């Protein structure tokens, strides 16, 4: 009985050590089954040490040692696998062998076997994809029990003389089995607690990070400015529960929320040299813990006692920083530190995305401007050639053509006008057609019949002209005998349709060239301005006609009031 209690005492010392170790980072690799070599090695070292400790703390008994060495070997094997288990057992066993006694060989063999048993169980549970069971105290208890029983059998079988070993085993078997099994189970239970805490910790951490991501997404897509930054700062302040949050660009504070907002004002130049340094070095900086003290650079009364500065990047360029503060009574906890770094990365990618979207918008605007300004060079030079011939025979007509050419170019250069009246658009088309008519002489016939009521309706600029140009370039100009272009309106249920029709019937879906792009942009602009009902509709009967039409919606319908429809609803 005395043996039981002293072994339990020994086990307690052991567990206290295990508990203390669990507070150190050395323990972390043990919490998950990892196949990394360094982790395996740490596992080996740690449990070999426990084995050796078990031998030293053991009670000398009849030239043998009653001990808790098995805990180290079995758990080493369970957590590290058969190889680690074998070496832990071997190391513990050899150490025991060096201490001598009549059971030295038997103990060396049995400890190695125990490590191996642990290792094989590890293999078994990993194979069954239930590695979580390795951390169940009951299972560890059972495995240790089997290992200890095996040890006793080995001692009886190997240690000579038999009578002495039998005598020893009958004396130590029960106490050692109880102490080792309970010890191993408790040891794993400590590990498991640690694991649970850790996982809970990272779960809250991830949840908070995700909430911040979710709440802040898209805020900066309309620009990295003070009002957007204030929204983001508030979200971070609410979610991380730090003392205060600030966001700066490279020169000034854009937003400040939390303790100290009486003297930390947005829209003031950055005063902290650490912030500037963090941005210059593109590095996260911690202030207020360790050697670098945090002192508010604005006010000596400031309650803030520690800070973290995280640079914000757009791509590789630092565009600002985010700062998390805690008051003097608290310091930034580890969780807030790693969360801060995570937030930094998250926000950086959002800034980048915002930048990207902004570029895209600029690009599509540029694209439209380009198309406006881009006159088909073929048209231009042919027009000039026509005029050059007309000058000879009819200078007045030539002058008139030059007027039309000028008008056409003038309206092409009005790039900033988003919408025009149908009257203006028709004038533009007319200028274009007058030139083309002169060029094709009797090969081009025109018929324009638009309801007068519609002339003051507004529509996106450069809507009609590309359709007419298309009808000539890909239609009528391919007819030897010439052809006819009709531009007309037709009342329909939802408003009025404007048609551009040629009698060539040669429309094929354009390739992705500038013509195709031209029609795409017409459709896009119609849709943005009028809504989906106004998409360009193309109907082609081969060799008969190509009709392109779009809807001018009824102006009295709600949502389609001219000029009041948002034109940037992509």
């Amino acid at each position: 009985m005395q043996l039981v209690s002293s072994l339990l005492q020994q086990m307690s010392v052991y567990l206290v050590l295990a508990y203390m170790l669990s507070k150190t980072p050395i323990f972390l690799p043990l919490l998950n089954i990892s196949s990394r070599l360094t982790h395996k090695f740490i596992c080996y070292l740690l449990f070999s040490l426990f084995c050796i400790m078990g031998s030293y703390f053991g009670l000398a008994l009849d030239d043998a040692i009653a001990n808790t060495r098995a805990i180290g070997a079995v758990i080493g094997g369970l957590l590290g696998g058969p190889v680690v288990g074998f070496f832990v057992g071997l190391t513990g066993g050899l150490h025991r062998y060096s201490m001598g006694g009549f059971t030295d060989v038997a103990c060396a063999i049995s400890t190695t076997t125990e490590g191996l048993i642990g290792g094989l169980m590890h293999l078994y549970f990993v194979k069954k994809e239930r590695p979580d069971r390795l951390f169940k105290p009951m299972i560890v208890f059972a495995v240790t029990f089997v290992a200890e029983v095996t040890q006793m059998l080995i001692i009886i079988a190997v240690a000579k003389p038999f009578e002495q070993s039998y005598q020893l085993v009958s004396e130590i078997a029960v106490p050692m089995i109880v102490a080792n099994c309970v010890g191993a189970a408790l040891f794993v239970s400590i590990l498991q607690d640690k694991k649970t805490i850790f996982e809970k910790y990272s779960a809250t951490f991830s949840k908070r990070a995700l909430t911040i991501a979710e709440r802040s997404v898209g805020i900066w897509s309309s620009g990295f400015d003070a009002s957007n930054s204030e929204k983001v700062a508030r979200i971070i302040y609410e979610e991380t529960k730090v003392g205060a949050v600030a966001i700066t660009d490279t020169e000034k504070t854009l937003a400040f929320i939390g303790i100290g907002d009486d003297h930390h004002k947005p829209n003031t130049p950055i005063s902290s040299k650490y912030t500037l340094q963090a941005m210059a070095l593109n590095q996260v900086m911690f202030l207020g813990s360790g050697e670098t003290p945090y002192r508010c650079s604005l006010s000596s009364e400031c309650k803030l006692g520690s800070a973290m500065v995280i640079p914000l990047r757009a791509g590789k360029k630092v565009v600002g920083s985010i700062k998390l503060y805690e008051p003097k009574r608290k310091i930034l906890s580890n969780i807030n530190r790693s969360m801060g770094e995570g937030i930094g990365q998250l926000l950086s990618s959002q800034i980048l995305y915002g930048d990207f979207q902004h570029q895209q918008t600029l690009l599509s605007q540029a694209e439209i401007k380009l198309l406006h300004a881009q006159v088909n060079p073929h048209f231009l030079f042919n027009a000039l050639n026509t005029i050059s011939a007309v000058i000879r025979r009819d200078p007045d007509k030539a002058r008139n053509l030059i007027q039309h050419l000028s008008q056409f170019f003038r309206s092409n250069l009005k790039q900033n006008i988003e919408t025009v009246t149908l009257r203006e658009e028709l004038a533009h088309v007319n200028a274009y057609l007058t030139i083309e008519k002169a060029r094709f002489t009797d090969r081009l016939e025109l018929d324009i019949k638009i309801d007068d009521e519609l002339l003051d309706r507004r529509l996106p600029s450069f809507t009609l002209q590309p359709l007419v140009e298309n009808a000539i370039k890909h239609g009528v100009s391919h007819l030897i005998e010439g052809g006819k272009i009709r531009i007309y309106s037709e009342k329909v249920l939802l408003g009025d349709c404007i048609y551009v029709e040629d009698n060539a019937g040669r429309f094929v879906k354009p390739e992705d060239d500038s013509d195709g792009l031209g029609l795409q942009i017409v459709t896009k602009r119609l849709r943005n301005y009028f809504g989906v009902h106004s998409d360009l509709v193309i109907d082609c009967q081969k060799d008969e006609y190509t009709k392109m039409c779009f809807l001018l919606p009824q102006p009295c319908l709600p949502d389609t009031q001219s000029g009041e429809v948002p034109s940037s609803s992509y």
Partner: protein
Amino acid sequence: MLTAIVIDDEFFAREELIELLHETGEVDVIDQAANAIDGLKLIHSVKPDVVFLDIQMPKISGMDLIAMLDPETMPSVVFTTAYDQYAVKAFEDNAFDYLLKPIDPKRLMVSVQRLAKVKSAQQPAHTQAQINALATKSLQQVPCVGHQRIMLLPIQEIEVAYSDISGVHVQTADKLETSQLTLKTLEEKTELLRCHRQYLINTQAIKEIQFLDNGLAEVITKSAKVVPVSRRYLKALKMELGIL
């Protein structure tokens, strides 16, 4: 004096060029055409020294037109274009002259002098290789000129093409037309296959082949036209049909 014709689908473009050519005092513009089909007919009938040829024309482009000419008898060609950066590169690469519209009279003078030199050298204006590099590789339709009308026959509708004393004829299932193209051009630029010195056959239109004595044969087309096959071409025809 150089004789010339102008082919352009735009009235004013023709008029302007004819006027400018007249002003050079070196060129006699003997005729003009508003499309490539009429142009082809003119080239064959008036045999000018030089053709001023627009590229973008309805149905048959300038590039198609030169594919339809016999390289040996082909006149000098000067392309005219308002704007066509790719074509211009090809002209330069293949020693073809071209003029950009509106045409600069000084530049035109350079062309005219060059043309006069070519004429006096009495050599073909363009080499076969240069023409091949520019001309449309494979014609999809055959221009045919009738009385007061122009026809474009798609190759797949043609069953037989043959030549006789009155010219080259193309036979579809229900029509017989006269083409400006030579049998040689048709053989080179279309899928029609030579089966006789005077006949080309569309292999898709063959219904049966009857073998006669002494190595001759006759093809019966889908619309029951009988086409002679000479000994010389029978083997090639059989190979094409995969029956050899």
